[in-house]
């Protein structure tokens, strides 16, 4: 069973994403702020992260930067209420798999999640997906000792 980390400060939003992803067969880990998100991403080794940018403590961008510095290549889908072109460019350089604006079409979200997680195993075509390519190989050890594993690479 695949793990999905849902990061958003609004409880109902986390609940919504959780409901949608459970239907796709994901197990859900929730984080309501950036620090919790980083902690969960490193300890739970999720297969997918749904990331909000506007968080109470550190921004979603900082969360992503921290994860990438930790060589965590998990696919990240950004879902935000902000439309900021400069921010999108920065996110792209950090390798995000998708970028959605709230309010999201929940069925569209399900489709994209399926594509992002499915594409990774099947084709590895897009650069964003390519960056996330090693992910499927990692879930098993990540669950046990995710942080140490990254350092061994």
């Amino acid at each position, binding site marked *: 069973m695949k793990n999905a980390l849902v990061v958003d400060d609004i409880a*109902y*939003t986390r609940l919504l*994403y959780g409901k*949608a992803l459970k239907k796709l067969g994901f197990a859900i880990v929730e984080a309501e702020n950036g620090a919790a998100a980083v902690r969960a991403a490193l300890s739970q080794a999720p297969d997918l992260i749904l990331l909000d940018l*506007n968080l*109470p*403590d550190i921004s979603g961008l900082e969360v992503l930067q921290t994860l990438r510095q930790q060589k965590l290549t998990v696919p990240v889908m950004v879902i935000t*209420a902000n439309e900021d072109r400069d921010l999108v460019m920065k996110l792209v350089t950090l390798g995000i798999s998708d970028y959605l604006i709230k309010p999201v079409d*929940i069925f569209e*979200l399900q489709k994209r999640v399926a594509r992002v997680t499915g594409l990774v195993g099947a084709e590895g075509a897009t650069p964003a997906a390519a960056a996330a390519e090693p992910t499927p190989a990692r879930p098993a050890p990540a669950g046990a000792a995710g942080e140490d594993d990254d350092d061994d690479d």
Partner: protein
Amino acid sequence: MRHLRDQLILAMLLVALAPIVFFSLYTYGLLDELLTRRGEERLTTLADEAQRCYLRGCRAGDTRAAVAQAARALPALQVQAVTTEMIDIAVAVLRLDKVRTVVPREVWDGVAPAGAAVTLPVALPAAVADGPAYEAFRMMLWRAPDGTLLALRRSEREEQQWRRRVLYEALAWSGVLVAGALVLALLLARRFTRPILFLQRWAEAVERGERTTPLRVARRDELGALAATLQRMNARLDGQIADLGELRAYNERLIESMFSGLVTLEADGRVRAVNRRAQELLQLPAPAAAHGRPYRELLAGCPAIAAVMAATLDEGREVQRAEVGELVAGRDVVFGISSNRLRDSMGAVCGAAFFFQDLTDIKRREGKLRQQEQLAALGEMAAAVAHEVRNPLNPIRGFAQLLQQEDDWTEVREYARIIITQVDALRRLVDNLLLYARPGDVAWSDLDVATLIAESLELHQGQVREKRLQVVCAVPPTLPWRGGLAQVRLIADNLIRNAITVLPPGGTLTVTAQREEPWLTLRVADNGPGIAAEHVPQLFTAFFTTRAQGTGLGLAIVRKMAQDMKGEVSVTSTVGQGTEFTVRLPLTLPV
């Protein structure tokens, strides 16, 4: 004679000396003495003549006839034969006609030898009607070779005539002396009045501003020194005039080259100076034509500028960078105008100066810039609002979509409840946005702040119970105040809700309200997590929030409400210890 002073003194002395000498001589008998001496000389001369006459007569043989001949020949002289007798060895008595007089022995001895003559002063009684009156005269005694003693004395009349003549002569000499002194004094006076006159005429020429030839007075006295001083003074004056001219030209160039227009007025409102820029800006006549005309007449077309001038000149109100609009030559012009009253050296107001700038282009650019800034601020605000709207829209849309597929009625009800809460959140956002954005009108009324706080706490009773919070309310039973009811309620609600939201279960909420002259102070404190120092400056900014719930408008609204009532809000916070918000509202109604 180097000093004018000496010359003057000498002249005065010369004028005064003659009469002084004359009157001194006369007064102290010196003239008498002079007359006596000269009388003796004359007597001697006359006596010589008489002696020669007598001797000629004697050669004829008769002594008596000889005496008569001599007396006849010399009417000015009385010639008498004198008889003498010795009284003792010291004195002889001399008998002259019927008069006897005592002669000292040495005089007698003097006339004893034949041919000797002695002159002696005698006082003989004169023959007057009412008895003897002594007349003093000098008499010569002469012993003729034949032994006859002759007394020779000048006749009384001749003596008087001669005395008068001598006196007139002395007076005439005195007159000549005085006249001479006068002439000399005049000449001397002329000697120094002439250069003074010359200096005067020269100074008058300088005064008239005529170009003068250098002053040449070749004298070594005070006048020469004065002339030299005047010459130096004139040279310095010429230098200063040249400096002044240069300064004036510099000022004129400065004023002409100024970017600002300049108009100066006299105290009575007449134009004193206008520079070229002012002439262009205000479409005034040439400076020469504008000079001396009243500004009201010149600036009839620019009433706003004339009003500024009137305010400065008549009411003493100086303006700094005031902006006035005028229609000049069919063009709307925005003028920047500054005014200063001008004071003379005694500090009295003697006019005013006005500086003009054409701000039309600057204003236009400023307007454009302000518009852009407003648009940018609007964009920022719109982005923030969009963000706040999208967040609740997200679960609304999502759960509505899930509803379409959901068969489990428990889930359906849950989804519907969520959608309703999010719609409510949206409505609250819109309400707050309107509250925040509406104009700050305050409906002032008498209210009791204590009651309002109690109501607000009551409103949040549910959450307080839920979180098991401890509430400390230090508010007097009544706290009357005049203010805006809606505003105070919003302030209390927002601060209390904020505190309750951030407090962990079991925390303490403290609400204090009291009069602290000149403020009514409301404090809401919590012992929650506190606020990081870097967030404090943005705390009251709209849409700034570190929390998931809330619109980010609560504290912005608190600040706006406090400001609408001329109050202020401040915050002190320590991470880990808690936060205290303080609202200060004026006790007395601001005007």
